[in-house]
C-alpha cells in the first residue's frame, strides 16, 4: 500500500430526490489499497458506490479522485476525466448482452483509444486469460454461469487498465469456491496490475480475504460508524452494530443432539 492518497471524500452528503441517505461522510483511500465499504442492507453502501463512480449527484461535500474533483452541480469534464481512470464491476456483471464476451472487452477500447484492432484483440485475450476465461471470447453473456459472468465483468472493468477498480458486491450470491476465485482475482489484480480497488460488500469472508482497510456505514447514523483495519473492526467492542456484523450468532442457540 502506498502513501499517496488516490480518493478523498470530504463531508459528503448524497441521497435520492430531496432525501439524504448519507450525511457528512469523509474518508481517504490510498494507492494500492483494497478498500472496503461495508455495512448492513440499506445502510447506503450502494448509494456511496454510485456517488463515487459519478452516477449519483452529490448534494453536499466533494469527492476527489486522482486530483479531479466532483461536487454539487457536477462538472461533466471533470467527471469524464475521472471515468477514464476507473473501471467498475457491478453485482450483475453488467455485460452488454448483445455483444460477445470478447466484444464486451474490445468495445470500450475501440471507443476510447486509437489502438489497432490487432492490439485490441491481444488485450482482450490477455484480460480473459487473467480471469481464466480463455475460451469464452465468442460466448454471449447469457451463456455464462454466475461466477463466469462476474469474472467476465471483472475483465471488462479492467479492459481500459484503470487506476482504480470499483466493485459492487463482487462475490454476493456466489458459492464459496467461486467467491474465493473472485477474491483471489481481485488480490491478483491489485498485486500484478497495481490497481487500487474499492469494494462494496457485506460478505465477511470476502472482507477477510481481500480488504486492507474498511469503513462501516450505518443506516441510522447516516454515515460511518467505524473505520480502520479489518482486525480493528472485528475487535471493536464498544459498538454493538459492529460486533453483530462480524459475530453473527443467535444468542443461546441450542444444537440438536
Amino acid at each position, binding site marked *: 500500500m502506498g502513501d499517496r492518497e488516490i480518493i478523498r471524500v470530504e463531508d459528503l452528503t448524497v441521497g435520492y*430526490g430531496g432525501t439524504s441517505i448519507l450525511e457528512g461522510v469523509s474518508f481517504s483511500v490510498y494507492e494500492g489499497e483494497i478498500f472496503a465499504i461495508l455495512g448492513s442492507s440499506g445502510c447506503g453502501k450502494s448509494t456511496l458506490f454510485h456517488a463515487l463512480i459519478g452516477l449519483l449527484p452529490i448534494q453536499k461535500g466533494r469527492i476527489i479522485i486522482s486530483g479531479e474533483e466532483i461536487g454539487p452541480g457536477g462538472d461533466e469534464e471533470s467527471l469524464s476525466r475521472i*471515468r*477514464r481512470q*476507473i473501471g*467498475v464491476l*457491478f453485482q450483475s456483471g*453488467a455485460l*452488454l448482452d448483445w455483444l460477445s464476451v470478447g466484444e464486451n472487452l474490445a468495445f470500450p477500447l475501440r*471507443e476510447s483509444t486509437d489502438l489497432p484492432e490487432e492490439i485490441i484483440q491481444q488485450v482482450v485475450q490477455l484480460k480473459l486469460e487473467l480471469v481464466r476465461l480463455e475460451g469464452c471470447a465468442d460466448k454471449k453473456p447469457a451463456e455464462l454461469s454466475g461466477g463466469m459472468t462476474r469474472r467476465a465483468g471483472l475483465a471488462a472493468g479492467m479492459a481500459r487498465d484503470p487506476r482504480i477498480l470499483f466493485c459492487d458486491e463482487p462475490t454476493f450470491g456466489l458459492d464459496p469456491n467461486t467467491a474465493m476465485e473472485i477474491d483471489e482475482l481481485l488480490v491478483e489484480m491489485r498485486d500484478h496490475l497495481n490497481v487500487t480497488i474499492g469494494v462494496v460488500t457485506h460478505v465477511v469472508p470476502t472482507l477477510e480475504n481481500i480488504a486492507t482497510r474498511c469503513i462501516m456505514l450505518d443506516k441510522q447514523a447516516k454515515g460511518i460508524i467505524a473505520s480502520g483495519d479489518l482486525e480493528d473492526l472485528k475487535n471493536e467492542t464498544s459498538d454493538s452494530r459492529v460486533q453483530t456484523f462480524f459475530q453473527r450468532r443467535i444468542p443461546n442457540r441450542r444444537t440438536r443432539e
Partner: protein
Amino acid sequence: MELESIIQISRFPEGKIALFFRGELNRERSARLWTDLLYLLQREAPSEIVCDLQAVERVDTAGIALLRGFKQRCDEQGIDLGFVHLPEIAQRFLQQGQPAQEAVSTDVPALSWISRLGRWGRAGAGPAMDLVRFLGEVAAAGIKVVRHPKDLRSAEFLQHLQEVGVNAVLLICVLNAMTGLIVVFQGISLVSDFGADIYVADMVVRSVAGQMAPVLTAIIIAGRSGAAFAANIGTMKIRQEIDILSVLNFNIPAFLVLPRVLAVAVATPMLIMLADASGILGGMITSKVVLDIPMPSYIAEVQSALEPKTIYTGLIRGAAFGIIIGLTGCFQGLRTENSADSVGVRATRATVISIILVILADTIFAVLFNAFGW
C-alpha cells in the same frame, strides 16, 4: 358438554381453577379447544386460571394464537390468567408483564395546504423535468450529429432501421391491403347505386392513402417498435448496462436514443409510402374481383385522384410520427425502475402514450394542412 380430552381441570377454593393441557396444541385441535375454553369460562366463572402446559408435546402458531386469544378474553372479563411451563416459542408471544413492543409510528404529520401543494408540484415536476432534460440531451446529440455526421452511430442506426423498417414491411403491407379491401366493400353500396363503381378508387385514395395508412402504420410501429425500445432500454437499465456505459463515458442519448429515433423517423415515412401502395393495391384487386373494374381504369382513376400533396403530407406526418414514437419509447425505457414488472409497465406506457400522441399530432396536422390549403 364433554371437554376435549387434552384438557383436564382442577378446581380450587375461591373460584380458582387449573387447566392442564397435554399432547399437541395445534391447528387441528384449536377450533374445538376454543369452544371448550369459552364454555369453561361461562360454566366455571373463575376468578383466576392457571394453564399448565408441561405435558404439551408440540405447539404450532394456531395453538399460540388460541392461548393468546384466551388470555385476551380473560383480560376482558377481569379474570387473572397465568401460564406455567409455557413452551419457549409461545413465551415470545405470551410473556406476562412484558411491555408491548414500541409500535413504529406510521402517522404522517399533517401538512399545511401550501406544503401539500408544494409536494404535489414537486412530484409532478419530477417527470416533467426529466422529460425536458431528456429532450434537451437528445436535441444536443442531434445537433452534434448534424454538425459532424460521422458522430452518428451508423451501425446501430442501420440495425434499428432494419428492425423497425425492413422487418415490418410484410405486416404493414398486409394490414393496409386489407384496409383497401374493406374500403372497397364499404364503398360498393354508395357508388353502385349511382353506377359510379370506378369512384371506389377515389375513395381508396382519399381514405386509405390520405388518412388511414399513415395513422394505422404509426400505430403498428408504436406497438411494435416503441414498446420494443422501451423494453430493450428498460432491460438494459435493470441489468446495469446503462450504468456501465455511463461509466465508460458514453453519451447515452447519442448512443442509445438518437440511432433509434432516427431509424424510426426514417422508416416510418417509407413504411407509410408502402402502406399507401398496399392499400391502393388491395383496393384494386378487390375492385377487379368484386366490381369487375378493369385494372387500367382503376390505375387511371387513382392517378387522377392521387395528388402530390397526399404523398408529401404523408411523408411529413410519417417523420413526425416516427420521432414521437422513438422519443416516447426511449424515454419510457430510461424511466424504468429496478424491477422486471417495471419493464412491462414502461413498454405498455410507451405504446399507449405513443398512440395518443400520434393521433393528437395527426389532428394538429389536419388543422395545419387545412389552414395552409394543402
